[in-house]
């Protein structure tokens, strides 16, 4: 298999993924969550939040970079985008086993590894796109509301780290999806993994 052939397959998987309504809706959701970040920062700065007798609100840094940081915190803590990644990977791998469409790709003269790898890389492109959308919408609103001040390298590093952890999560889901070959089985498998991870984390 030539690198060019693999790039064609990857491009096809990206096109297929982005043609899904759930993937498009996910990008809109990523933008909404990003917009909510600076809004929450603004609301928190206006609220009178006390902790140990001291005002937390008055200590908040109101800057464009901080607004973007809040957008990232909201994205990562809500897990809503991660749930979408789980769904997209489950649909593009296990869903294709169920619909038998993956069989049509497997009978082509391509090595087997190329099929899941191209699907994983396509999901990675979606994750990157969702982060770019979040950066643009969250950053724009934040800059308009609070100015362009603050340390921008911090959210940049945060968004980069989120990309890596989300891509890793997508790889985990993909492995479970390849093994289970069922959407429900993939979701159940990921939940079992997350529960075991949490329980073992406490125990150890």
């Amino acid at each position: 298999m030539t690198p060019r052939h693999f790039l064609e397959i990857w491009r096809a998987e990206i096109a297929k993924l982005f043609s899904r309504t759930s993937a498009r809706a996910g990008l809109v959701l990523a933008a909404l969550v990003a917009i909510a970040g600076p809004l929450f920062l603004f609301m928190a700065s206006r609220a009178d939040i006390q902790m140990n007798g001291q005002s937390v609100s008055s200590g908040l840094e109101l800057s464009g970079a901080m607004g973007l940081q809040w957008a990232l915190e909201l994205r990562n803590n809500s897990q809503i985008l991660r749930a979408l990644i789980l769904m997209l990977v489950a649909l593009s791998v296990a869903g294709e086993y169920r619909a038998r469409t993956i069989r049509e790709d497997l009978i082509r003269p391509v090595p087997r590894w190329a099929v899941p790898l191209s699907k994983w890389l396509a999901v990675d492109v979606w994750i990157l796109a969702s982060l770019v959308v979040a950066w643009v919408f969250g950053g724009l609103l934040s800059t308009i509301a609070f100015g362009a001040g603050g340390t921008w390298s911090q959210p940049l590093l945060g968004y980069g780290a989120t990309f890596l952890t989300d891509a890793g999560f997508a790889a985990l889901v993909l492995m479970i999806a390849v093994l289970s070959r069922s959407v429900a089985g993939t979701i159940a498998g990921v939940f079992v993994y997350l529960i075991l991870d949490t329980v073992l984390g406490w125990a150890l």
Partner: protein
Amino acid sequence: MEVRGLTRSYGHRKAVDALDLTVRVGDVYGFLGPNGAGKTTAMRCILGLIRRDAGEIAIFGDKGVSARRHVGAIVESPAFHEWLSGHRNLVLSAAYAGVENPRAEVDRVLERVGLAERAADRAGTYSLGMKQRLAIARALLTRPRLMLLDEPTNGLDPRGMHEIREFIRSLALHDGITVFISSHLLAEVQQICNRVGIIQDGRLRAEGYVKELVSGDVSSLVVEIGTPEPDKLSTALEGVDGAEVLGPGESGRIRVRPGALEPAALNAHLVQAGVPVEAFVPIQRSLEDVFLELTQ
């Protein structure tokens, strides 16, 4: 396509057992067998969808992944991304197939199967016959030299079956494509295939030209004889080595196995014995007869 010693087991059960097949260039080859005989397993092994335990598969001299570049295939019922158009489905498949100039090729195959006008519609809105044609278009994307078709007319109405049958014929005649068809429809296979392989319990029972298989040898010949005096007929046959009355045939005639005599000699013998012969019809065996004999 040369398949030698193909074996695939599920647990202790051998689904395909040392299967040998030879499909020659230009053949329209019918792959027959009862349910559970191992046809689909064999086809899946040939296409690399499942691993084989043993055996060799060579397609136009190539083996392994590279052999599949010669092949277009429809395995079981056709599956598409229902939310995408027929055209878009084929463009995505073309990427996997490594097709140069995919858009032009997609237009070519859509034109070839007569779906160009509906190409922009969502695949989910296609009838089963249209989906089958779209599947053939997808299989044709790589300009294959061998087409593997698993039950290509399954679920189609008579018109759809006729269309697909004619299309398969034209693939062989006009496009020079060798065709390998798995089917339960023996009459259909007899109509369109020149060679067949019959498989049962994972093993090849017979392989050869349809004409040779249905003609059989003299001992398998059956004749239907019309006569108002069936008792005389029975008496006359008693003296002929291997001859026997099999029972009633079509239109009140009597079905007879002529034994050692050729049909013309049998007719002369009956007339000489004073049997009033009103009709004398040699019955050619159908592929179904051959199939039932071999798979009993």
